[in-house]
């Protein structure tokens, strides 16, 4: 139930880090993580000025290369979170991509996409040739938070649907934001045909499930249980920065 409890060591990012990307289950875990956070990467690339198709193509090749390579070896298990690792790798990938493109313009070998060379020399995300040319990290973090929230919502919605309460989610989701909603609980109770007391039970449960889902999601991307709350706070801060 609680992601911070003793079964923490089984989360994906810890598997990836432990195995340094070597073991098959580590590869599978990384693949899952990349799938989960495909959207922030895509949005980041779009924000970079790429068209939708172009961004999709780039994202595909980025993930393909990330998964194919043993790039994880360079990640620092002590302080790395998957989010910062992915952002670093993405930036690095973009630098490489630009370099290749200019090489192409200059008539270089179009077939040979030599993205690997620098990878073996430096850790991704640590050395950036030109950091100012990138849009701020907070944009990526914001998109990340949105993707995380979406995954949390999907989890609770799926649970409710499985229990035959799909209308509960649609009706009750405004209360996930807090109590200041202009909607009345009595109306919601009528809509769901349950008692006003039961609506409070449902709201509480939805909030609890969602909070657990979010923490479980975050736990997949960090290394230690203590980091879950930290990461959640970090993402809330990132959302409050309105650098859109």
């Amino acid at each position, binding site marked *: *139930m*609680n992601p*911070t409890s003793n079964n923490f060591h089984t989360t994906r990012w810890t598997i990836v880090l432990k195995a340094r990307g070597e073991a098959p289950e580590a590869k599978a875990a990384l693949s899952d993580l990349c799938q989960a956070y495909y959207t922030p990467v895509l*949005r980041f690339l779009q924000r970079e000025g790429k068209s939708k198709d172009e961004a999709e193509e780039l994202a595909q090749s980025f993930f393909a290369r990330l998964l194919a390579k043993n790039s994880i070896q360079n990640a620092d298990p002590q302080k790395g979170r998957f989010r910062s690792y992915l952002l670093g790798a993405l930036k690095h990938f973009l630098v490489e991509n630009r370099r290749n493109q200019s090489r192409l313009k200059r008539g270089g070998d179009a077939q040979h996409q030599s993205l690997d060379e620098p990878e073996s020399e430096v850790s991704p995300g640590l050395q950036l040739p030109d950091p100012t040319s990138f849009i701020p990290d907070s944009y990526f973090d914001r998109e990340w*938070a*949105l993707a*995380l*929230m*979406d995954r*949390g*919502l999907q989890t609770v919605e799926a649970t409710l649907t499985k229990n035959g309460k799909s209308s509960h989610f649609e009706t009750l*989701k*405004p*209360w*996930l*934001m*807090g*109590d*200041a*909603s*202009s909607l009345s*609980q*009595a109306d919601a109770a009528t809509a769901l045909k*349950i*008692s*006003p*007391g*039961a*609506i*409070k*039970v*449902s*709201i*509480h*449960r939805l*909030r*609890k499930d*969602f*909070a*657990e889902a*979010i*923490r479980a999601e975050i736990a997949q991307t960090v290394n230690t249980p203590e980091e879950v*709350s930290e990461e*959640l*706070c970090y*993402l*809330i801060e990132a*959302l*409050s920065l*309105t650098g*859109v």
Partner: protein
Amino acid sequence: MTNLQPSNCPQCGKPIPENAPSGLCPSCVLAKAATTANQTNPNPKSPPPSLDELASHFPDLEILEVIGVGGMGAVYKARQPKLDRFVALKILHVHDDDPAFEERFNREARVLARLNHPNIVTVFDFGSAGPYHFLLMELIDGVNLRQAMQAGRFSSAEALTLVQEMCAALKSAHEDGILHRDIKPENILLDSQGRLKIADFGIAKLLGPDEPHNFTLTRQDALLGSPQYMAPEQIESPEDVDQRADIYSLGVVFYELLTGELPIGRFAPPSAKNEIDARIDEIVFRTLEKERDARFQSAEDVSTKVASLSQSPPPPTNSGKGKTARFATASAILTGISIPLIYFCFFTLFSVNSSSGPQEISNRSENIAVFWVRLIGISGALLAVTTVILGFFLGISALSDIRQSNGQKRGLSRATFATLTWPFIVLLVIISMFIPGPMETKFVFLILLISFSVICWALIPTLRRWARNEQSLGALSIRFIAVIGIPVLLSFGVVDGLVTEWHKDPEPSISETSVTAYYSQSRELEGKLRAARELPPGSQRALTFASVAEEAALEGRLSIAFVACQEIDGPGQKNHETLANTTRYKCALILGRQGYTSEATQIASKISAESLKRTALIKISKREFDDNSIPPPTQ
């Protein structure tokens, strides 16, 4: 990902980004998630036994997860495979240094297991397993009242229902001689159907050592700590509590349900915090009495009182002391002011007009005075009309406000007064126009009718409240004096002024002449009368009076004619009786011809010569006025 929500977050007010999942404000959702999580383990100091550890001691149970951890112990969700049901396993937090625990536990738990009520969590089993003492209970698939209150405030109707259910549970337990001793929102559960279930009955006693000094120690350990819900006597001498201690705790929960706050210190009545029926205050206060003798004596008493609330409609709440009541008061005051104001203006303007006779505006200073009086009159009239309109519309707005509150707000009578007074007065004025008779009669009639209506209107509701025993005799008499006294004082002024006017110049009819002409003519005749009085006694004086009398009779000034006739043979005019008689005869016929039959008879009856009197009376009764000649006096 439909964007159903408004573009601004209802929670933080900031715009919601268009790609926000489910259209929810991401900041608020994640912030709420951050505060929601990890509430299940507030006491990490003593970690609950792990699932694996427990499993070895409970071979008949599949222990699934920790539901909650508190001062009393930890609760686990478990499954009984044999019965195929889910149960709650409570592992009690036992003090090692309490030798009497074993015996007390067995004694108390047996009593608890006997409790059987739909609003009480049932105890299936109890005992010890390995190092643990446990209670096996009904699993409630829901939340506790604390969590429910965090999910949203309860309406007063919901709170009343919950209190009723709590009372039912307490009544049943108290009848079995079991006190809860630890009623608090955490122990009151709501299942997924919204039904209330009280948990942990008597556990406080079961766990709490019998000696009071030990109790103090345990309180410091926060083991049984919920002193804010405890009755004063429970804190002071926990060994000497009865069911009234539970009633107090129930009152604290009741107060918290209604207001979201604890009744600490000099706490406000719930109705001052929310729009709540003020009669609830009384119930809450009586459950929270510091002296238990002053409290409700049983849960049933509370329940009966609460039930009586839902049966009778609520009286106007204190919210009536708000804007609407002030509107209503203001409108009533404005209307009240406007009545004398209009009256004042009416007469000011008239006196200016009537004094504008040609002989009176003789010099400049009087001209200026007239100007000022007229200015005051006109501005007063403007002010009066404004007051009337303002009072009327404020009254209407107060009325519509009261209607929107379904009659909950106060000030209905004031608003009615403000709205209806002037239309009513206008209606009465129109009616009075059709009433025959002189102006004064109409006016007195009008004032009497208005006063009567005001008295009826204002006193009936008061009397009704008094009859329903909602108002004391003192309040009634104050209102009585105010309602009757003010119109009486007002009409005193009005009627007194009228009467003076009347005595000074009690002319009856002005129907065909304008008010102005009426006043100036009567002044003229009065002047002549005064002038005649200045004359020395003699025939000249008698003849002047006679001519004034005839003129007055022709003008219809009855009283002047009367007085003038009287003066012809008045003191010192002994030898003018004949002239007086003939003048009376003439005046009687003149008046009779004009239709003043009774006045004519009156004046004719004053004739001292019998035959002349008879002739006059016959002529008046037969209405033979064509012959104006005076019959020769017969001896």
